[in-house]
């Protein structure tokens, strides 16, 4: 009863801050906020939609004062459970703070609110000949705030860097409710690189309420090509050879046979369904360089056994190839009800070896695996297909994932390249880092704040009450469905 009163008064207080229409709390509505794009699920008690920095600060202060867990959320497209309210509590959704406050073409930067959609920023910058580089596959829907939290990557980060290379300054609400600017519009700020620490902190150090990001000039020329391989091994060799040759394409992506099977159902695109793998390669820059580099890339691809190389002839062709790539992950929904997406990174010279071992592991567990990933960065995305309704599969898929992460680390790689540790990978931090290494990270967290209820149980498995690893929760099965 006491809990109920506390909950009611909490809701009342939140309504006082943002207005009743922007506070959701019914059981039905909470179901809609129990997930993100990953396999993690957990119900919050209340979801609040602030529209100003001050409101965010008030909400954070309130949560802190009543000792209730609080979790920031953007569009909920994250792939590591960063926005999942593991311990319940308040979910702060930033989607209403979606204004692009300024685009400064002379200084090539933009100031945005956290709920701005990644692609919208590039669209708004386009008339100035500029764009925002990081392009996660979910860029049509994901938010800049979420990108900052996860240090998101994307296909075109190979040549131009990930989110952290494009963020100059952040206005953040710290876990105790204090509002502070980290960095700013200038490239060089004296002092520790707090902006660099905050980017990729997975929403554990505070909530972004404004971001100043760099914009980059749109390349005058771009060429997109698809190299088709019978064998995935040959495709892997081609990737290593391209990187070793000293050409850094704007993007260098691999799509395997299983993924192609799903993609061709989803998008009208000519990826040959009998191929073992295709490489989607983009070279951009000055037109003379693009010509030369794309010829060099083509030659390498052919030398290493590409049976066919197609070049996108029109902007529409190019768009289709990319739409297929960016929709590839979700298209896997056509093959299975669930997928567990891994995000390991390996040295680029080890791709072939690692992909083989990934295949072996999934065979052993009797799971199909679809690989679609940023090959040029060595950033793998093995997607293990499964069905959560079949007893035991949810557990076994995590075990298979653990083995794959182990392999990545063994060859000198790491457990996550762009999705974040979040929930299900935190048990694997110890594969990569010693207790002292992790303690150093915790010192960083403690320097930002010591509020334990702020986005709890993410990244580190050492916090109390969180448990070592993380299991897929089994939701209560209340018998037959209540549809007629």
């Amino acid at each position: 009863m006491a809990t109920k009163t506390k909950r009611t008064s909490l809701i009342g207080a939140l309504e006082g801050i943002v207005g009743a229409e922007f506070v959701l709390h019914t059981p039905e509505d909470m179901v809609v906020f129990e997930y993100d794009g990953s396999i993690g699920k957990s119900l919050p008690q209340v979801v609040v939609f602030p529209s100003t920095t001050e409101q965010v600060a008030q909400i954070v202060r309130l949560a802190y004062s009543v000792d209730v867990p609080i979790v920031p959320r953007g569009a909920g497209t994250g792939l590591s459970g960063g926005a999942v309210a593991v311990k319940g509590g308040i979910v702060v959704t930033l989607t209403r703070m979606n204004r692009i406050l300024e685009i400064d073409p002379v200084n090539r930067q933009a100031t945005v609110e956290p709920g701005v959609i990644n692609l919208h920023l590039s669209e708004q910058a386009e008339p100035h000949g500029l764009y925002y580089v990081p392009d996660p596959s979910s860029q049509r829907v994901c938010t800049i705030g979420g990108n900052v939290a996860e240090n998101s990557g994307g296909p075109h980060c190979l040549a131009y860097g990930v989110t952290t290379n494009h963020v100059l300054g952040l206005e953040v609400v710290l876990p105790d409710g204090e509002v502070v600017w980290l960095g700013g519009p200038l490239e060089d700020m004296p002092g520790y690189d707090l902006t660099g620490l905050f980017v990729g902190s997975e929403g554990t150090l505070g909530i972004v309420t404004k971001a100043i990001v760099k914009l980059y000039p749109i390349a005058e020329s771009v060429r997109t090509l698809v190299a088709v391989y019978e064998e995935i091994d040959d495709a892997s060799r081609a990737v290593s050879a391209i990187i070793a040759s000293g050409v850094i394409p704007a993007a260098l992506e691999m799509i395997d046979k299983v993924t192609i099977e799903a993609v061709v159902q989803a998008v009208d695109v000519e990826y040959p369904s009998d191929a073992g793998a295709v490489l989607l390669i983009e070279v951009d820059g000055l037109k003379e360089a693009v010509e030369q580099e794309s010829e060099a890339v083509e030659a390498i691809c052919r030398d290493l056994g590409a049976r066919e190389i197609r070049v996108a002839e029109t902007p529409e062709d190019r768009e289709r190839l990319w739409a297929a790539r960016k929709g590839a992950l979700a298209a896997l929904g056509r093959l299975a009800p669930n997928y567990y997406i891994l995000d390991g990174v390996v040295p680029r010279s080890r791709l072939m070896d690692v992909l083989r071992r990934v295949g072996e592991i999934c065979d052993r567990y009797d799971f199909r695996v679809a690989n679609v990933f940023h090959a040029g960065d060595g950033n793998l995305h093995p997607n293990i297909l499964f069905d959560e309704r079949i007893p035991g599969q949810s557990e076994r898929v995590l075990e298979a994932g653990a083995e794959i992460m182990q392999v990545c680390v063994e060859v000198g790689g790491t457990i996550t390249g762009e999705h974040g540790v979040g929930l299900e990978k935190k048990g694997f931090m110890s594969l990569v880092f010693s207790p002292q290494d992790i303690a150093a990270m915790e010192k960083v967290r403690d320097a930002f704040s010591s509020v334990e209820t702020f986005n709890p149980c993410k990244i580190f498995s050492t916090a109390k009450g969180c448990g070592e690893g993380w299991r897929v929760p089994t939701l209560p099965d209340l018998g037959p469905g209540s549809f007629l």
Partner: protein
Amino acid sequence: MTTTNVAQTLAHLVGAEHVAPDDQLARYAVDGVVPQTVVFPADAGQVADVVKLARAEGLALLPWGGGTAMAAGSAPERLDIVLGTRRMGRILEHEPADLVAIVEAGITLAQLNEALGRHGQMLPIDAPRSERATIGGILAANTSGPRRLSYGTSRDHLIGVRFVDAQGELIKGGGKVVKNVAGYDIPKLLVGSLGTLGIIVEATFKLAPAPRASSAILGGFRELDQALEAAQAVLQAGMRPVALDLFNAQAYQVVAARAGVPTLSDRRYFLALDVGTQPATVKRQVDQAHRIITKAGGKSLVVDEGTAYRAFWRAAVDLGRGGERPAPMITRSSMLFSDLASSIHGHEALGESSHLEVGVHVHLAAGVLHGVWWGEANGPADEAMLIDAVATLRKATENLGGRFVVESCGPSVKRAVDVWGPPGPEFAIMRRLKEQFDPGRIFSPGRFVGGL
């Protein structure tokens, strides 16, 4: 423990021949503060031993690479041990096919790039006196130069780091793969921390392919507006210069003389574009830049012979630091590109009114302006003038929304000014970071922002 005992213990830890003899201690003075002892450990394990000793004895420890940036930062509030990294100069791993290298902190930038160059690769970070400047020092000081326009700075290249923390533990951050979001970005914590959080012992870098062409185009202008108009046009014309720098006449004459390129003495402002990445794009960019420079009223000049090209950029990076005309003070203002004109004029006006000769060297797109302050008529600079200049420049820069830092100056000027300037509200977090990582204040105490 007495000084003698400390030296003895260190000699025991690293070998007596790797502790500097007393008569050399003065060479390791930092801002006039002479250390009690100077030690050169062989590896991370010995660094950890030294740190443990310092911690146990409450001694202040300051890492020393090539000693090229020791005039940076505030004067240390204490200095007991200088830890030299010169024995830690190995390349631990370089897999060319991965474009990644792991090196010890004491390797010099020149050594590293020479080795990488044999594989057609490079670490595209600029640092003055690269034959002496070490990787550890470059990271700690966050040194950058002209090529930051296209390659970024240390924070964009450092993908992994090992450092010894205040407990003497060897801590790893990041890894050796080019994308990595496992945990917090510890490498970013170390970049620019000026030896105040730990001793960097090992660094892993994402490398770049070496350019296959070397070519620069210079433009001389009579008016600043013309030079900036041309720079703006270059940025908007779809060109992809590697560097886009501006010099005033004083700075340019020094650079040109050292590099052996024409001095164009009838011009007052100079643009320098590095357009050398590959042969296919050089000619077209040179032509394009030539048209832009000419249209803006400038006179253009191509530097495309390999030796002259390298000499020019090297002289630009080294400007004021050693060589023929070391400057008693170098300042750095960071601001928006759009505010640079006003600041450049401000520097020159101040130079005139205070009878100081000032070289201005600007990384345009980054909005970073170096003021190289020479004394009047090449004589010893009037220190009072320099001290006044700092106050004036800081005020002017901050009025433009910029930040002003004294990058190097002599001990007496340093005692009179705050080289960093007042920290902002985010300083509370920085202070807590220092407390978390170095509660006993043994690492370079007092040298960083806000007296950290």
